[in-house]
């Protein structure tokens, strides 16, 4: 028997508003459609009414999880137009915050994935470890979300020696629980049965549909802006880009878990080699010069792109934010086809969607 099954925009398995229509034949999904736009706030338009400093505050509110990524990428665009060179220490502090953000975001997703498949003890274990990262972010920036670490021309807050040592210790402390999490993820039968061969996105489809970030890397596509087009100070760090070929939900779990190790590797290098010097240029409210810049940052969910147009005034002439979920969400119907209704929630969640980012 065939019927249409609606999921969302408000549904227990969804953290954010999105609507999916599943066209089913019995328990099997034959086709699917995804509808977004429930959270469209016109942030790009609001940015044209604000100056560069106000826009930093605004773009941080695009998303509660990757807020630093938005401010970081926007600031890079303005700095590129105005030809501002960020002091090395400021650039390192931005990277430290970005990698802590990636860690907490990946822990958050891994926990939610376990919760959706019914492995709640694992969910609680992962979120317990995530608290350590959240505490560090709070100590570093003063906030658990919307860190406000970025200003035009550098970072807003410095790291003293005590905090530097504390974050380095935390990198050591995270190693054992992360090993345990990866071991459980790789060997647990419940996780394997719910994720292996489920929601497959082939390499060919990932390339054609333009998938980004860990979602693409789980389909065998080696794509990471930090390596492909290094920016800020990422060229200073030695790290790997985990790539898995199977393209299923299991691969997405593995890629994100392995990426946590790489973030820790970057954090350690950044903290051990933190350069001396100023953290910012003390830039007052800048006029955004005539020109245009496109900047990219590897946010936790994939490549985040900002385009800024300046017209030699304080306000932005045009700001465009293109988020990874914009590319990853349209791949969902392709992954749903041929799977069962029971796996739909997990498959949608497996791209680590952020609809507040997507809708802007």
């Amino acid at each position: 028997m065939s019927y249409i099954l609606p999921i969302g925009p408000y549904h227990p398995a969804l953290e954010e508003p999105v609507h999916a229509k599943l066209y089913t034949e019995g328990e099997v999904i034959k086709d699917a459609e995804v509808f977004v736009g429930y959270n469209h706030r016109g942030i790009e338009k609001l940015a044209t009414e604000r100056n560069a400093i106000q826009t930093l505050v605004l773009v941080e509110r695009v998303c509660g999880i990757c807020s630093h990524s938005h401010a970081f990428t926007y600031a890079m665009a303005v700095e590129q137009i105005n030809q501002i060179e960020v002091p090395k220490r400021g650039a390192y502090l931005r990277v430290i915050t970005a990698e802590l953000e990636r860690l907490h975001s990946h822990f958050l997703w891994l926990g939610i994935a376990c919760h959706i498949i019914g492995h709640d003890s694992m969910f609680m274990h992962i979120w317990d470890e995530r608290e350590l990262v959240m505490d560090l972010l709070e100590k570093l920036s003063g906030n658990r979300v919307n860190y406000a670490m970025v200003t035009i021309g550098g970072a807003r807050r410095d790291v003293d020696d005590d905090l530097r040592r504390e974050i380095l210790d935390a990198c050591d402390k995270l190693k054992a629980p992360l090993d345990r999490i990866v071991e459980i993820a790789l060997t647990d039968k419940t996780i394997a049965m719910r994720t292996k061969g489920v929601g497959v996105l082939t390499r060919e489809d990932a390339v054609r549909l333009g998938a980004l970030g860990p979602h693409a890397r789980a389909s065998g596509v080696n794509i990471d802006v930090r390596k492909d087009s290094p920016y800020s100070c990422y060229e200073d760090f030695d790290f790997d880009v985990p790539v898995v070929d199977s393209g299923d939900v299991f691969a997405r779990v593995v890629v994100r878990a392995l990426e946590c190790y790489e973030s820790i590797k970057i954090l350690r290098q950044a903290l051990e080699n933190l350069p001396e010097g100023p953290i910012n240029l003390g830039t007052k409210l800048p006029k955004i010069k005539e020109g245009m810049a496109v900047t990219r940052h590897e946010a936790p969910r994939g490549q985040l792109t900002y385009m800024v147009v300046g017209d030699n005034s304080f306000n932005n002439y045009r700001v465009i934010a293109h988020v990874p979920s914009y590319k990853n969400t349209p791949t969902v119907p392709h992954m749903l086809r041929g799977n069962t209704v029971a796996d739909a929630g997990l498959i949608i969640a497996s791209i680590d969607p952020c609809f507040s980012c997507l809708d802007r």
Partner: protein
Amino acid sequence: MQVQEYKKIMIDKDQIVPVAERMRKKEIWLTMIHGFVNKEGQMEICYDYQVEPVIESYHVVGEMTVPSIGEIYDVAAQWPEREINELFGVTFEGLDVSKRLFLPEDMLETQGKGQIMVTPLSELRRLNREEAEET
């Protein structure tokens, strides 16, 4: 400190599809399609491709009807094209716009189309203030 390079290339609308086909053949990512009304009041549509480590940005200026590259880049092009259609009223030939992406369902009949262009927030605020003063 490394800066990401950005290369702006002006093209005619006839070149949109050939450029997309060439890029797709080389498995180059379509970073984004975006648009804005430039200072001369003309629509500027930009097609950004990731020719790593550079972003090659192909700009088409002054066109309100352009061919869709949805056939070539699938949803990676269709979604941003639908967004530009909703926000700026640009027509993408061959693109299915029967469903809304971001703006309200009744957008096509009543509101939304071109709203971003013609109603700056500052103007809206001024109108609201005047209306409040009158009442």
